């Protein structure tokens, strides 16, 4: 297109000359994008955890704390006798303690070393996971078995939480997106108002509507692009911090940011630019129907 460089420059000039409104638009759009991104990252992490939990054919059976380790060995034999159980491996409370200590740090655990609160357990592997519920019921009936860490229950809970978070996020993000479009529409409308004199002259000398419109569309898209860049930076800063905080409470391996950040960035740019475009487009559409003095309000 002829004169595109000039139009792009005008668009950038608009963003700068109207910077207070531009910053307001960027802020709203950033909160919209960061929330969307956070929700998406949360749900793919949950999905991964759910997958790994579902895949691992391992069920932890906890033994009552008043049972000695010798008695526990017999309980193990009983568990192995249950049909559909392939193996039951003893997992002592000392081993468990050591593993927690490695994962979560020495400090806390050194203090309680001599009074280990963890129970002894068996790691049970089943032949056929479709018989899971019945097998678990049978194991529960064995004397000395305290509880069973039902991974499926956990997986289901996680999925439920993830779904709930997604529904809330869709609502919030939808509302924020509408707000973003309106704020950007207002921003470009304010720019248009401040440049109405130029617009009226452009129209009087025969500038086409698409030409008049272009700097304002660029303004909207630049705001969208800046928002996308800021949001990507925000996600980079937040992700590691939030994830290490969560994993210190619930140990699990989260998806490294490097694997997904490119997709996040691309999605942000597309969403930001599209929202910016539409925001500007709806506000200038009305304006371009006016002529001459109407534009100036004289």
């Amino acid at each position, binding site marked *: *297109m*002829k*004169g595109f460089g*000039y139009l792009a420059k005008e668009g950038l000039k608009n963003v700068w000359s109207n910077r207070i409104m531009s910053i307001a638009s960027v802020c709203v759009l950033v909160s919209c994008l960061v929330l969307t991104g956070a929700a998406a990252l949360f749900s793919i992490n949950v999905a991964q955890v759910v997958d790994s939990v579902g895949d691992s054919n391992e069920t932890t059976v906890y033994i009552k704390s008043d049972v000695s380790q010798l008695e526990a060995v017999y309980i193990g034999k009983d568990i192995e006798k249950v049909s559909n159980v392939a193996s039951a491996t003893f997992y002592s409370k000392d081993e468990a303690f050591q593993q927690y200590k490695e994962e979560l740090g020495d400090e806390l655990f050194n203090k309680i070393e001599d009074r280990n609160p963890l129970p002894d357990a068996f790691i049970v592997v089943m032949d056929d996971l479709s018989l899971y519920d019945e097998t678990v019921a049978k194991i529960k009936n064995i004397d000395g078995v305290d509880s069973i860490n039902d991974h499926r229950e956990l997986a289901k809970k996680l999925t439920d939480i993830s779904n709930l978070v997604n529904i809330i996020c869709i609502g919030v993000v939808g509302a924020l997106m509408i707000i973003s479009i309106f704020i950007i529409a207002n921003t470009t409308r304010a720019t248009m108002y401040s440049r109405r*004199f*130029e617009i*009226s*002259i*452009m*129209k*009087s*000398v*025969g*500038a*086409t*509507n698409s*030409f*008049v419109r272009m700097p304002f569309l660029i303004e909207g898209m630049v705001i969208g692009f800046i928002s996308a860049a800021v949001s990507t930076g925000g996600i980079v800063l937040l992700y590691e911090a939030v994830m290490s905080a969560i994993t210190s409470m619930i140990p699990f391996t989260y998806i490294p940011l490097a694997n997904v950040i490119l997709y996040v960035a691309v999605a942000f740019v597309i969403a930001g630019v599209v929202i910016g475009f539409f925001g500007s487009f709806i506000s200038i559409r009305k304006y371009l129907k006016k*002529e*001459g003095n109407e534009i100036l309000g004289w």
Partner: protein
Amino acid sequence: MIDFENVSKTYPNGTHALYDVSLHIDKGEFVFIVGSSGAGKSTFLKLIMHEETPTSGEIVINGKKTSKVKRREVPYLRRHMGIVFQDFRLIEKMNVFDNVAFAMRAVGKSTAVIKKRVPYVLDLVGLKDKMQDKPSELSGGEQQRVSLARALVNNPEIIVADEPTGNVDPEMSHEIIELLNEINAKGTTVLVVTHEHELVREFNQRVITIDHGRVIGDTKDKSAGIRYSDDDYAGYDEYDDAPQYPDNAVVLPD
């Protein structure tokens, strides 16, 4: 070049701005459109610029019926004409060069063309030395010449000047019309809307008189109305409170 065929314009609020106006302006003509305020001059201009469309009748510009012009074709219609406004409409923060260049950028001309054309046109209106000045640093007459340069820069076939001398010193007014005359001599059709009869008298050009929405005089086309002697113009501006004329009445001043 410009044809009005039985053009009437009634605004949505009921104001009758033009009644059954028919006139013909040839390519290369210089025409004064005179009339007091409220006579329908500004509607006449808006119709030519296609800012408004007639309620009835047809306007033909460059052989093109404007009723057939689609919305997206309007900008291209306007590129045939350069508009000079009474209030100059210069952009304060831009210097003289950029103000004129703005009209070229608005129609997508390249920087290389702009750099060649703008100084040429500014030279034409005698402002080559003031290219870097801001409009506020210029006199009214100079500002109007910048406005004229901007109207000329895209090389239009028609120049439409709306009260070009309205905000200019009387001495400068003569100069502005002289400049328009020179432009006309180069083949551009020039329409000057004014209420300054003194000025009109100085230049022996065609005069179309509009009053209360009608063409009541045309020094070229006698059938369009009654031609006035110069004396008849005296006190013309006081006619504003005259009664509305019935549709077919032949109107004579007292």
